[in-house]
């Protein structure tokens, strides 16, 4: 059952990614304006119709997928890499190193991700990279905490102790016995938040704080089409469906993966 959701989710994500990558070869330029074909209905010329400026909706959806997957992927990567690194360092670096990391993590955990994004947009202006930066600033905190907890507990595990006693250095013992399992947990935890992340980025872009024109982004596309709900419903349905499918795929993956890896108790212990 769980494996099935993992599989469906993974295939869905692969399909979205393939569409995003292959679209430039198959579909028109997503930014090409054609005043003669404004708000064309879905059909032969334009698979999913066109928008207010006659741009091909399918191409823009695919381009929006690149925007979304790129920015979400960046935040995900940060939360995995920085989280794993900071958590491991904090677990192995002794008292002072731990305290420093722990305090930073405490603050980062106390700052709601979207609120930070809103604050950064307010200070340095709207933009997709600002959002990615702001989201990444706190995204690594939960993963760091998980990595710390896991690595810290593993340090005194019999197999690790045995490896160390056998003369292998602490770092090598950790790398061989602990890091793979810690990474798996961190990856799953980071993936759990991706669905919400996609929704947040789309919502912030809808508000005009994310992708700026003419960059195609699902939330922004929907915002630009609010006026045309009746005249061109496909302009609302398509980006909504895209967000829905993307969130569904990563949620299915996360659900499936969570069953495979034990993330420990649901409320993480405080340091």
């Amino acid at each position, binding site marked *: 059952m769980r494996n099935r959701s993992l599989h469906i989710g993974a295939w869905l994500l692969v399909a979205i990614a393939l569409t995003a990558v292959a679209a430039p070869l198959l579909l028109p330029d997503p930014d090409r304006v054609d005043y003669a074909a404004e708000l064309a209905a879905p059909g032969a010329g334009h698979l999913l119709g066109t928008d207010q400026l006659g741009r091909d909706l399918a191409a823009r959806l695919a381009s929006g997928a690149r925007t979304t997957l790129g920015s979400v992927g960046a935040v995900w990567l940060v939360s995995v890499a920085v989280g794993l690194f900071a958590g491991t360092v904090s677990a192995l670096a002794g008292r002072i190193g731990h305290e420093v990391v722990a305090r930073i993590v405490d603050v980062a955990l106390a700052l709601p991700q979207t609120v930070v994004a809103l604050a950064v947009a307010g200070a340095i202006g709207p933009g997709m990279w600002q959002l990615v930066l702001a989201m990444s600033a706190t995204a690594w905190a939960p993963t760091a905490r998980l990595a710390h907890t896991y690595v810290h507990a593993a340090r005194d595990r019999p197999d690790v102790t045995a490896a160390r006693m056998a003369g292998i250095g602490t770092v090598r013992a950790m790398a061989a016995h602990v890091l793979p399992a810690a990474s798996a947990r961190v990856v799953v935890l980071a993936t759990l938040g991706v669905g919400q992340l996609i929704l947040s980025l789309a919502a912030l872009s809808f508000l005009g704080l994310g992708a700026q024109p*003419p960059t195609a982004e699902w939330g922004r596309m929907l915002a630009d089409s609010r006026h045309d709900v009746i005249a061109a419903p496909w302009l609302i349905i398509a980006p909504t469906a895209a967000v829905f499918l993307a969130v569904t795929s990563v949620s299915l993956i996360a659900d499936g993966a969570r069953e495979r890896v034990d993330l420990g108790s649901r409320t993480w212990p405080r340091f």
Partner: protein
Amino acid sequence: MSRHPLTRLALTAALLAATLTACSSPAEPADEGVLRVVTPYTIKNLDPVQQGLWAPEWGYGELLMRATEHGTVEPWLLESIENRTPTGWRLDLKPGIAFHNGHPLDAAALAAVFEANLAGNKRTQSQLADATVSADGPLTLDVETRHPTPNLPNLLADEGVLPVFDAAALAVVADRSDNAAVAAAGIYTGPFAVQSLTSDRLTLKRNEAYRDGPPRLSGVEVSFVEDGQARVLAVRAGEADLAFYPPSEALRNLGADVSALTAAANPSPLRGFVNTRGPLGDVNVRRALALAVDYRSLAEDAMDGLYSAPVGMFPASVPYARSDLRTDTAEAARLLDASGWGIRDGIRAKDGKALTITVLSYSSQPDTAVIATALQAQLSTAGFAVEIRDVPANYEAMADPEGWDVGLSFDSALGTTYDPLGRLHDFLHTKGQYNFGAVGDAGLDGLLDELSAAFDPTERDRLLDAIQQTAVADEAYALFIADRPVRVVASPAYAGYPASSVLQHVGATTGPDAA
């Protein structure tokens, strides 16, 4: 299944939610005699010195002069205005004008208006510093300005320079930000009087004692709604009769249930500030740019006919308007060739550097992004490589000498005084306050200085003609990209409402009119 206690619990909860949803408040029924409008701009308080500009817009206040749909000014509360010396003016009030509190507006009350504004109103201070007034008869006031001020009639028509109010009645109000107290003092003169003002609504009632007889409407409700889409939806949903400043996106597919009304004259022009520090420092490049723009296509194709193509610096309705704008790509190519910009891969280049122009659009006017995109396409055929930057605030971005070549901005050439001088000086004089592009043309400066002291109408028209010739046709110091007509979205009952291009939205004769 339904006997299951958990299922019952779930169904009960669902039912509860549904009931709560159904209790949503319906739209209030419309009162026939009350006009309900939605506008983005919030009126913060009723203090005329701070917020007086809204009074003539919504019909609870009036000015000494007013702008007409032709872009000229005419007396309003005044019977006449007469220039006697370069600095001396005689103002005659119409007889029988009274404030809402019943006090008459006579020369003494008007003198108090001048003094109150000169004491506290920053716009009055900057335009009429050190002016003195003296009553010369019951309805006659003499005004003496420090410098020659040929545009005093225009200044008096500006909604912010000299709001007219009962200064004596306002002086006894302890707290001018107390809306109820100011409303009760009845300090304005318009066909409607303020009943209440909250953070989201201004409510007006008919001034029964209005000098031209009672107004048609029994009242006006002005709701402040920032979101443009919401304003249009409010009219479609029957919550409002008129929506002001509808966003262009909302007009494209408005639907049959409401109509978009267009003001006859005075469209809002989209200007392109030109930065003379970059490649546009070369007059040939500037002129080529102006000639390469297809004004008709911008208005008709990019903006779907919601805009119109400009003819020149000023709206065609003013007497001194010149038609300087035209599209001629061959001429543009010739000018670029003449300046040594050769074509390489479709892009003009000189000394190995491509002719790259950065166009600023700004987010509070989303149309600028659309137009910038269209400009990019048009100019690329003439060999310009256009980059678009969308900035949050255009004036701030243009204050930076670097990073832009053309800054799009909705800036009327006439301003709120309907006097060409002020904006010309601000934008194009070497010392102009908003001379972002560092225009420094001694000849143009001389013409502008002459204009600021010219009283004779024919002399003024000659100077204005020369200024347009220099600034637009010869030197192309400014671009005029597209004109956006003033539009109002109206419910069927107000399909015949005359949209005002000079911000006088509500008057004594306003009322429901079918088309």
